């Protein structure tokens, strides 16, 4: 299972990096979204992969950590998703503003001279 997740994150991250380096704003924002998926998955698996383990306990007294998933990365990833979502949405607004003001979707705000 680890290897599948690792390859998935690698593919997402690689595609994201390639798209971020492209000259059109739409490609850049798609790249940013892919990067944020990759990063969120990465944070998530840093709590180690596990199946059918609850992250929380309601029992009193000492517990066995092996029976529970690590709740901290789950909380972190939730925060990271919200923040990443908000900032990407903000970028979308700037992208539209730039398109409207300059009339081109090139990241430099003008078409390259060929």
């Amino acid at each position, binding site marked *: 299972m680890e290897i599948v997740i690792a390859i998935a994150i690698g593919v997402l991250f690689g595609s994201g990096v390639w798209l971020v380096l492209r000259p059109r704003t739409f490609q850049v924002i798609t790249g940013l979204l892919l990067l944020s998926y990759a990063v969120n998955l990465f944070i998530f698996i840093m709590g180690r992969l596990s199946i059918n383990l609850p992250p929380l306990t309601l029992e009193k007294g000492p517990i066995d950590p092996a029976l529970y998933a690590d709740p901290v990365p789950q909380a972190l990833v939730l925060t990271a998703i919200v923040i990443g979502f908000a*900032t990407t949405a903000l970028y979308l607004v700037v992208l539209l503003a730039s398109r409207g003001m300059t009339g081109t979707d090139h990241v430099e705000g003008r078409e390259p001279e060929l």
Partner: protein
Amino acid sequence: MSNHWLDQLLITPILLPLLSAALLVFINQRRHQLKFTINLLSCLALLVNAGALVYLTDTGHWPRDIGVYLAANWATPFGIALMADRLAAMMLLLSAVIALAALLYAYARWSRTGVHFHSLFQFLLMGINGAFLTGDLFNLFVFFEIMLAASYGLVLHGFNAARVRAGMQYIVINLVSSFFFLIGVALIYAAAGTLNMADLATRLTGLNATDRLLLETGAAILAVAFLTKSAVWPLGFWLPTTYSAASPPVAAMLVLMTKVGVYILLRLWLLVFADHAGVASALGGNALLTIGVVTIAFGSIGLLASQELGRMAGYSAIISSGTLLAAIGYGQPNVISAALFYLLSSTLAVAALVMLIELIERIRKPSAAMLALTMEAFAIGDAPEQDDSAGVPIPAAMAFLGLAFFACALIIAGLPPLSGFIAKFSLFHAMLNPYGLSAVTADVGTLAAWLLMALIIVSGLAAVISLMRYGVRTFWATESTPPRLQLTEAGAVAGLLFLCVVATVQAGPLRSYLDRVSIGLHHPADYTQRVLSTPTVPGVVNPEGSE
């Protein structure tokens, strides 16, 4: 823990801007006088608060001179701890001072050229203050994002094509560096199982080799994020464009934001990765030194090549970041203390310069065509007339501009008699005598130290050449009508420069204070013990299960 009321001073620099920003959102843009007053009161309160923290951390009010505030009364490694030592208190004071100056400057025109300037300004302050105070890596990420989100809005403030283009690049770079930040944090958590900085420092010794490697990888990736913020060489190409495109008060706040990256590096490296002697960091010390040196060289070349004052200010900020990083990489306590003096002086001077730029530009083109455009875009009814009652135009505007520009140039270049000279001189002094004057070592400084000193001098020369070229061209070679300056605008610049003069005259007491700051930083054990041993406040409701 005798007096819990004073502990609340650690949370107010975060809560106060949050509340005033939230309040400001609901006030109509037409009532800008009221909005400005609320913002000003909040900034003044922050200044007083920061002053109180500087006093409390230096007079033995708290054990080991570090104040700790447990958010929601959770015990330390589990909850988020806020902490203020001398360095954090000093940086809070610096941010309050620059915020006050930027706000005063913005009063005459900029705060009215778009909506929500005041709210965003307060959110930015909340993020910056939070980043200075937090003791938790993930919480640091959250405050960084608050700061960045507010700065995105502010960079776009006064909407025109140049700002949108610069803002777009600025946002992408910061989003990507935030991803690096997250990866670094996740790796550190995977290796050490904690995100509390103090807890991390204590757990480091017990790690096995694999985890240690993972942690160092995480730290290096984390450093990429901070180095992007402080705009060092391969990561700093965004800075000059953004600075010259942003409106002047916002650019002043951006100058402060680059120092947040430097602050975090200083804190984390000395706390977590310092070796047991508490001196040079074993991991990445040389890398920081090298990056710093290359950054100074890059900044100097950029400075010589720029024609526009906005870009010159940007490259000065890059040189300042480079010098600071090289000094952090160097690592000795008295080098750090000299570097902190340099940080204060260069931040104040560059912030003054970016605000001065617009005033100087008025000599050349007094119109404000751009202003009219944004007024239309945001449908703001009462356009401020060019010379309305917002402050009194000051006489002798040309003399003021010339003198202020000259003072900025002197400080940035590091020439006597102002504080820039003292900063660079004490930096050299510390590098040549890394163990203090009393040490009986015959060594005359390492090769790296000589190289660094040579580069710092060359960067000073570059600053002199390019700033004087600009100054001569602007003040002497053009016949110009004196521009109209508002009292608030000139006052903001003059205030920052006055503080530099104060730092020059009071250099002795200031240096001894900074020595204490630096010595505190070089005793990470004090910090970790203080944070980890802070008890929860008894007698209030405790979270379930924590006794």
